[in-house]
């Protein structure tokens, strides 16, 4: 089966390369040769990347020869940040990097895509999450007039705004759905990064002494705040979130941190992981390897958590209790994704690592020179696979 499709994949790969490098790709998507995904396929990842300064979103496939190959690519007007698959559907939502002004919904089965522009007085902050039934999508945003953090509640089909909820903070970044049983009602966990920045002038951070990061729980039906937690050190920005779930254990939320201390040595030595539990609240891990104070992405794994630390060129790993495990060396490591069966996938500079059990397997990314993965990727859930 894979052999039969190799020529097509090579064609897609070549086409991606040529279009990306020549800058002649169709203006929006126009990617006609998309290969539909079936549950027999090898693991695939949805990801965002750049080639020669041009931003793309699309799909990478783990081929039989140790290469991750681009099998679908959509040209983007500006860089993307997060990407998320709709539950039970072969549909992906890619979110513009902050301060962003677009969402792109696209199909894993064909060349269909739909772009949505945000209103003039809001910007997207890079992440979105679907409700478990796939009918709603929630986006982190900043209101430009007030600077307040906002969760945009949107219809998953039209992407139109249905409501706006305050995040009780500013600079909201990633948000995740809480597993059943953690709260009494459906709940969103939102990371208020708390960094004062000026979206109207780009990404400049001004007034870091006013930082106010927090983790907030919002009732996912009303937007009411049902809990808010802060770390003692306000220079640790709370940015990326992932759950670890294991049988007979309460879920643990891993929180990747971004240190913003003025002193470079303090910044470099800062923790990059905090854990949140319903009973103990939010706590930064006291002793961690030197990860240059920046966790760019986090995922739950079989054993606990993994964080991509691009400034330290490694993937750091912990148990769900917070005990450090052996890190993986990977240049420019950042995107991480994990699932039972396929293990941990971590992306770096023109290469990736798959960790199943204790042995990391190297993968090259068979793409044009200079492909730069952005912060996040996610494993594709094949059609008919259990959620």
């Amino acid at each position: 089966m894979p052999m039969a499709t190799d020529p097509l994949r090579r064609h897609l790969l070549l086409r991606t390369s040529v279009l990306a490098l020549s800058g002649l790709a169709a203006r929006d998507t126009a990617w006609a040769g998309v290969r539909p995904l079936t549950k027999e396929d090898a693991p695939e990842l949805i990801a965002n990347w750049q080639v020669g300064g041009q931003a793309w979103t699309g799909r990478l496939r783990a081929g039989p020869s140790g290469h991750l190959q681009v099998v679908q690519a959509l040209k983007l007007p500006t860089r993307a940040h997060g990407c998320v698959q709709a539950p039970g559907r072969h549909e992906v939502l890619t979110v513009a990097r902050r301060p962003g002004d677009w969402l792109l919904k696209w199909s894993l089965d064909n060349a269909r895509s739909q772009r949505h522009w945000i209103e003039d007085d809001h910007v997207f902050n890079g992440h979105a999450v679907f409700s478990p039934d796939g009918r709603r999508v929630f986006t982190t945003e900043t209101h430009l007039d007030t600077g307040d953090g906002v969760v945009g509640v949107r219809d998953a089909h039209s992407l139109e705004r249905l409501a706006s909820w305050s995040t009780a903070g500013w600079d909201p970044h990633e948000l995740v759905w809480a597993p059943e049983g953690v709260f009494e009602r459906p709940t969103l966990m939102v990371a208020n990064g708390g960094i004062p920045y000026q979206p109207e002038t780009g990404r400049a951070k001004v007034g870091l002494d006013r930082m106010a990061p927090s983790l907030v729980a919002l009732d996912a039906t009303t937007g009411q705040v049902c809990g808010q937690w802060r770390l003692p050190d306000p220079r640790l920005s709370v940015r990326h979130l992932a759950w670890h779930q294991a049988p007979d254990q309460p879920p643990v939320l891993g929180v990747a941190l971004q240190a913003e201390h003025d002193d470079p040595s303090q910044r470099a030595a800062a923790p990059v992981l905090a854990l949140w539990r319903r009973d103990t609240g939010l706590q930064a891990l006291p002793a961690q390897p030197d990860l240059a104070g920046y966790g760019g992405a986090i995922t739950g794994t079989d054993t606990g958590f993994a964080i991509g630390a691009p400034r330290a060129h490694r993937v750091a790993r912990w148990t769900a209790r917070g005990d450090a495990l052996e890190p993986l060396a990977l240049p420019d490591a950042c995107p991480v994704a994990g699932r039972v069966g396929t293990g941990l996938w971590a992306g770096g500079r023109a290469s990736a690592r798959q960790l199943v059990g204790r042995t990391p397997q190297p993968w090259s990314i068979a793409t044009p020179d200079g492909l730069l993965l952005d912060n996040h990727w996610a494993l594709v859930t094949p059609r008919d696979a259990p959620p």
Partner: protein
Amino acid sequence: MNPTTVLRHHAARWALGPLVALMVAGTSLAAAPSPAAEAPPSRTWQRQAVPYYTPSQWVDAVWHFHQRPRAKQFALDAQTLAVLLERTCARPPANDTPAQRREAWSRTLDSWSALSAVAIGPTLERRSVRHIDFQPARPAMIGQVLASPPTRLDELDRIGAPARGLPALEWWLWSPDAPQDAAACQYATLLARQVAHEALALLQGVQARIPDGGSDDEPADAAPAFGEIVNQWVGAIEGLRWRELGKPQASARLNQPPRFSRQLSGQSARVWMAQWAAIRDLAVQTNGPAPQAGEGPIPLETYLRGRGLNGPAQALSQAVRDADHHLKGLSEPAPAKRVRAAVRSLEQLKRVAEAQVAPALQVSLGFSDADGD
């Protein structure tokens, strides 16, 4: 009255004396930044040695020769607009037309765009863009304000940004729906005064960053300011590429013209030219030999050549020349093909800035992969 007299007169009235004194001191008020004419490349570096500049000398030159003339021009234009509106409201001429007021607003927009294109120092710290240039204006919110309009500057702080600043004035000056009664005129005057007040505060902030020349010592650490300016310069390229040109075109509805930022007044192209001139002037030497430190502007190209980094300097010069060619003469309404060409040339300039210029300068860009997000 000449402009300086006008400023002094109204400064006294609005308690802006110290700021105006700052402004009229030193170099001529007419010291305007260069317009966005096509830039001929300077080749004097091939014949004359380019000095080696320290980072702090480059930062000082940015404030002294790039930002100060722009801040002065903005302060002058904003004050002129405020004075004109106040005079018109107090005593409307018999055959009044909006042409003079519109032109005063357009000049203010020009100089504001030139100053704020590369948003650094006080423009960032004061959040001036949000304060006086929040886009788009919301006519409904302005209408609510006009039901009970404020009369003092400090009362404007309670009013949302979409009902203030240059976009709100643009709506009042150009929209056929805008009321032209005395209350609206007084509110417009108050908005113009707020813009003028902000302009003077920005000028003061720029002046404060210019050393008095009494010390030859290299400051302890010029790296943060150096990094901020280079980062914001790259951000300015992206702002012009995407926010001003690319997004309006990409988001236009079928068979509808793009909604450029100053569509109502038809002044979008003036903004593009002013922003481009600011970006370009920070990047390349357009004429004459490279100055000694403290004697003239030091574009990035010159700074790089002074360190023997001719490869990135040449790439920068070429990319700027190409963008200059595509931006020159771009007008509104702009043919889609021409806008696309301008966007592509700015994309290329940004790539050169990110891939060659910033690494050569050892500046970590906030637009790069590992910048935190």
